[in-house]
């Protein structure tokens, strides 16, 4: 071998940090040779990935040395138009001056006019803090267009969720059922666990219209028509109840199934739980008071829940008597004579019509298979019980000698979430998991700190326009968790305060905002125009916008005076993305290997099932060119704007830089809670809570950039009701209360919105045109309805569903600049079942049109037997704008790749409810990416080997590499591109 290993003179270093080639956040070890990255490997000592890595993580080198990297702050040239990529280099000082002046003025006049939206941001703790301090309600990250249905559907039901908050315990599970997941955030850990699970003989079922990736290794693939999982899950629930395969004890003890619901239609409290006595709770409290009733079979009357002696009914209808039995003895019943039913009875009635036969016609899955799924789940849960000799105590003081569990676990992601009926599908799933008795139990679903949280969690937005005041921080969080209609962020007319209309009657539980509507709304000036739109790490001129062609036009649209409708656009990106072209000011971010970062407990930490974990990134290379971490930008701006959190009493800058901020910032003076949970206290002796520790960074660095806390075994399970855990969690300020988090099989929160819509509730009322909508979709019990877009589409004309999937080797639009990854996915095809294609006379490889009622795209067809015939799909975000990302205008990505977003609309067709309703879930505002209905047909000109639409070529911009190598051979520590120049 000629090229020998490192010679003596080579300077070799190995450093630990955290990967950010995706949001999974694996620990990595980076070997540097003469200060160049030679090798990136998984850190074997990291709790998340145990040494493994993925295709993206391994290609970090090519991200680092990509010619598409931004290296200079840029300003759109005088006279140049947005979209033209005509920029001039400016200094950071000029950039800061501009921002300082602009933002100062906006903050002084109308802070709403500044909107900060961030994409796959892993520092919402900081970006959110900045927005709040600034005083704008217009802040959100990707959640709204990503998977808020998953978060809300589950958190409003079980107090935790999949996504980054919890997952399946595959170590002990026997049956694992995965809905609609192609890759997900927990990429490496899920793969590690899935493989172990399969090796020890676990059975894996995947429910997905497409069979790739994970589904490929499933023991059973259940192809389903997109958007119909709700029907399937409800039918499974039907069958499980029918066969008595539910975990009765679990339902009674830990859920509100046995709790009595007022069913008196004449009563304004119809559909709410009957309460024994109204404990006086402070209005803002977010606990779910334990004062509801059961119907006890021994006393044959209502008793307070969890009475030791009680044995409640789950089924039946009862009439309240004059008295109820409480722990304190008999008490007058204020609702005597009221008809009540246990919540479970209502669920049974709800799913009565949802038979497997019914679901078969909707889902395309035959009745037998649906029953088989139900039986398998039920029987496995019932007959393969796990018992761990771990004693624990529940919140009612009962001591348990062991932790038991039913080894059926689930995972679900955007296949369920990205539909306008996703909230209810996901709530159904959470209820199914609950019926099987699998919540935070071995072999089932497990929470990750800081979850479980109260249902709903405590954080709230301001409740009206008065929460937004000049020169004042926002009076609440920009994003919160409404518990009832009065928590909505609306004005007196019920109209939204936020630009994206989150927390309005249109999407009341839009807990992650509706970033996908921000640009359209700002452009239209509905609810109001804004002045400055700052976008961080989101490619909103491309893959995170629906209806991309129009959105790009909106970004450069002008009013009658020739001024841009969105006057200022500031973009912080690390690459020359499509979005950069529309910026007036470009802030070049560093790469992940060049900055400090925090995966904070205040945001979405990397916690494990057995306790909280947070982690950091430590720079191992200096920033490239003039790039600057966005964190530093925010600290600098916060200081210049004198936002209270960033300056001291005298108004002087408080933090030198971001690392300094991370160490010293506390949520409130002396709260002891900061961005990092580990090694707090003067000498690092405390965790979660404690004074700032000046050496915190060093301690993380020494510990693989991770702080991990293992809860005592007895605190690791049943955490919704685990006394020890809840107290521990309160003590360490993960939660405010130690009250049990009863599982909401029946959702009173939703019922409160429904009551408001029915005019049965005091307080905030929906505008008339939305009453019906709120009444329909705010149902305390799960329901199935056809996705909204399908309801409004001629499905004869557009018979197919079109969806996208994540390729494992690419992260959104990030990786086309990556010379290695783009060799794996250089362009994309539309995958079509041969039967479907044949019916339209389309052959494999043909150029075709895919058309929805919103637009059409020209692309190439690829046959696949692994897709349900009513579905077509493609890999997400492979297609690119020509010339963007440092690629040649002839690159495959732009010439043969395509973006499905062009045919997906951000708004529903105008209908009776509203002219401009978002194409989103009516409960959560989740973008309904996968609702789009399409037809496909063969393109006339087969010789034209190009996709459509095409966009004006992005010019190379200052600061990016101009002469890209025609070839290279990367070899760290030598001249890195030993290639020819083009």
């Amino acid at each position, binding site marked *: 071998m000629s090229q020998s290993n490192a010679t003596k003179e080579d300077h070799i270093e190995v450093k630990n940090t955290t990967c950010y080639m995706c949001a999974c956040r694996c620990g990595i070890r980076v070997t540097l040779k003469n200060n160049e990255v030679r090798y990136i490997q998984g850190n074997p000592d990291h709790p998340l990935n145990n040494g493994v890595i993925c295709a993206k993580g391994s290609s970090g080198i090519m991200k680092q040395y990509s010619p598409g990297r931004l290296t200079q702050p840029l300003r759109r040239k005088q006279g140049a138009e947005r979209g033209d990529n005509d920029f001039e280099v400016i200094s950071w000082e000029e950039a800061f001056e501009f921002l300082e002046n602009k933002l100062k003025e906006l903050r002084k006049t109308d802070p709403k006019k500044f909107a900060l939206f961030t994409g796959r941001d892993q520092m919402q703790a900081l970006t959110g803090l900045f927005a709040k301090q600034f005083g704008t309600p217009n802040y959100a990250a990707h959640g709204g267009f990503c998977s808020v249905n998953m978060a809300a559907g589950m958190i409003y039901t079980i107090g935790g969720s999949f996504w980054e908050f919890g997952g399946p315990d595959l170590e002990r599970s026997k049956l694992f059922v995965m809905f609609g997941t192609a890759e997900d955030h927990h990429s490496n850990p899920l793969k590690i666990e899935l493989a172990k699970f399969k090796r020890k003989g676990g059975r894996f079922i995947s429910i997905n219209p497409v069979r790739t990736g994970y589904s490929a290794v499933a023991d059973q693939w259940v192809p389903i028509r997109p958007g119909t999982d709700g029907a399937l899950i409800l039918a499974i629930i039907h069958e499980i109840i029918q066969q008595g395969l539910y975990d009765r004890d679990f339902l009674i003890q830990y859920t509100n199934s046995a709790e009595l619901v007022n069913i008196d239609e004449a009563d304004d409290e119809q559909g709410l739980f009957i309460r024994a006595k109204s404990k006086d709770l402070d209005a803002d409290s977010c606990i779910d008071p334990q004062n509801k009733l059961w119907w006890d079979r021994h006393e044959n009357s209502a008793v307070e829940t969890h009475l030791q002696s009680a044995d409640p009914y789950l089924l*039946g209808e009862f009439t309240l008597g004059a008295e109820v039995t409480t722990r304190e003895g008999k008490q007058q019943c204020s609702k005597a004579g009221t008809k009540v039913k246990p919540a479970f009875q209502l669920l049974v009635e709800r799913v009565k019509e949802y038979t497997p036969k019914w679901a078969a016609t909707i889902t395309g899955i035959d009745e037998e298979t649906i029953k088989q799924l139900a039986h398998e789940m039920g029987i496995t849960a019932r007959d393969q019980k796990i018992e761990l000799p771990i004693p624990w105590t529940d919140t009612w003081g009962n001591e348990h000698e062991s932790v038991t569990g039913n080894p059926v676990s689930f995972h679900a992601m955007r296949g369920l979430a990205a539909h306008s009926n996703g909230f209810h599908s996901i709530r159904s799933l959470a209820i199914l998991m609950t019926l099987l008795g699998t919540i935070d139990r071995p072999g089932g679903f497990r929470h990750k700190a800081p979850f479980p949280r109260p249902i709903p969690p405590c954080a709230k937005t301001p409740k009206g326009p008065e929460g937004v005041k000049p020169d004042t921080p926002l009076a609440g969080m920009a994003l919160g968790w409404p518990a009832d209609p009065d928590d909505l962020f609306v004005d007196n007319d019920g109209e939204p305060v936020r630009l994206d209309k989150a927390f309005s009657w249109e999407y009341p539980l839009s807990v992650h905002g509706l970033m996908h509507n921000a640009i359209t709304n700002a452009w239209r000036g509905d609810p109001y125009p804004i002045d400055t739109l700052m976008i961080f790490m989101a490619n909103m001129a491309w893959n995170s916008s629906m209806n991309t062609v129009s959105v790009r036009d909106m970004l450069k649209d002008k009013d009658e005076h020739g001024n841009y409708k969105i006057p200022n656009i500031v973009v912080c990106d690390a690459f020359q993305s499509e979005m950069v072209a529309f910026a007036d000011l470009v802030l070049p971010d560093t790469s992940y290997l060049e900055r400090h970062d925090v995966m904070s407990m205040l945001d979405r930490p990397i916690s494990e099932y057995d306790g909280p974990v947070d982690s950091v990134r430590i720079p191992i290379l200096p920033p490239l060119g003039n790039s600057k971490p966005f964190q530093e930008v925010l600290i600098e701006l916060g200081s210049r704007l004198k936002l209270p959190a960033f300056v001291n009493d005298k108004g002087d800058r408080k933090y030198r830089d971001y690392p300094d901020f991370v160490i010293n910032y506390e949520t409130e003076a002396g709260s002891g809670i900061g961005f990092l949970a580990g090694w707090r206290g003067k000498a690092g002796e405390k965790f979660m809570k404690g004074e700032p520790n000046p050496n915190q960074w060093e301690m993380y660095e020494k510990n693989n950039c991770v702080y991990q806390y293992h809860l005592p075994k007895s605190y690791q399970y049943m955490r919704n009701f685990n006394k020890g855990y809840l107290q521990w969690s309160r003590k360490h300020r993960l939660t405010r209360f130690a009250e049990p988090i009863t599982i909401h099989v029946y959702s009173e929160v939703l019922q409160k919105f429904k009551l408001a819509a029915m005019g049965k509730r005091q307080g905030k009322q929906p505008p008339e045109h939305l009453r019906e909508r709120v009444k329909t979709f705010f149902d305390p019990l799960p329901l199935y309805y056809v996705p909204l877009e399908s309801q409004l589409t001629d499905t004869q004309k557009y018979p197919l569903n079109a969806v996208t999937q994540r390729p494992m080797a690419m992260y959104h639009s990030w990786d086309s600049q990556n010379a290695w990854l783009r060799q794996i996915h250089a362009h994309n095809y539309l995958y079509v079942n041969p039967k479907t294609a044949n019916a339209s006379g389309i052959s494999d490889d043909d150029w075709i049109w895919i058309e929805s009622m919103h637009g059409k795209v020209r692309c190439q067809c690829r046959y696949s037997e692994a897709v349900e015939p009513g579905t077509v799909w493609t890999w997400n975000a492979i297609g690119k704008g020509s010339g963007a990302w440092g690629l040649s205008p002839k690159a495959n990505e732009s010439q043969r790749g395509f973006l499905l977003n062009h045919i997906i609309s951000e708004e529903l067709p105008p209908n009776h409810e509203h002219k401009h309703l978002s194409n989103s879930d009516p409960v959560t505002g989740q973008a309904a990416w996968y609702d789009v209905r399409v037809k496909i047909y063969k393109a006339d000109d087969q010789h034209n080997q190009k996709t459509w639409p095409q966009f004006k070529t992005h010019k190379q911009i200052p600061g990016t590499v101009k002469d890209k190598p025609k070839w290279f051979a990367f070899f760290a520590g030598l001249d890195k591109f030993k290639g020819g120049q083009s």
Partner: protein
Amino acid sequence: MKQYKTSKQLALVIDLNVCVGCHACVTNCKEWNTSGSAGALSDDNPYDKDPTGTFFNRVQTYEIGEYPKTETIHFPKSCLHCEEPPCVPVCPTGASYKREEDGIVLVDYDKCIGCRYCSWACPYGAREIDEHQKVMKKCTLCVDRIYDTDLPEEERKPACVLACPTSARLFGDVHDPDSEVSEAIREQGGYQLMPEWGSKPSNHYLPRRKQKVKHSPEELERVDNPLKKEDYQAEDSAGPSLDDVTSW
């Protein structure tokens, strides 16, 4: 043909039962090898049309059967380090060789004249000429890792093996009957690719294994069926009963 007798034969065993086609092994291999002793592995048109480059390991996808009985197989393939490697004897320079000590098939880049003949002689398409160094390259079984005593013992494995998140890639001596790989081949039906050519690939593949269940109807009938607890009859206790209409 020459019989290659090696006491030890290192190899990879790929478990198709768990491979999810993530390509981690592909790019990690590239990454390790490009700045290691097999490097630098060149890439052409890295930012232009039809990017292409030298990779030692590729992951392919196959679909088997017709909808809905479709199986999707992810299929990683690198040099199989054949026991009777047809690529070796044809090499006119001796640049291609099979190591006696561990059976690894290697190319000596200093001897290789880049005639490509060995790549014609490999039925598996496992060799790739480096278009710029003009020598033949291929998977080295990470020979520059597995004996590197500077690395901790547990890391003396091929880069792709360490990277693989599903541990679908096992590494070891297939001649040692007690090794993990031999055991896996024996017990899980490990097989070789294109056995028809007698090249005896050392790398083996483990087939898909499916867990199936069948519940008998009796399993649905149980005394502890919780529905039996919900025998609440209060509503039906009004109206006439047998007591009212019979007289005996």
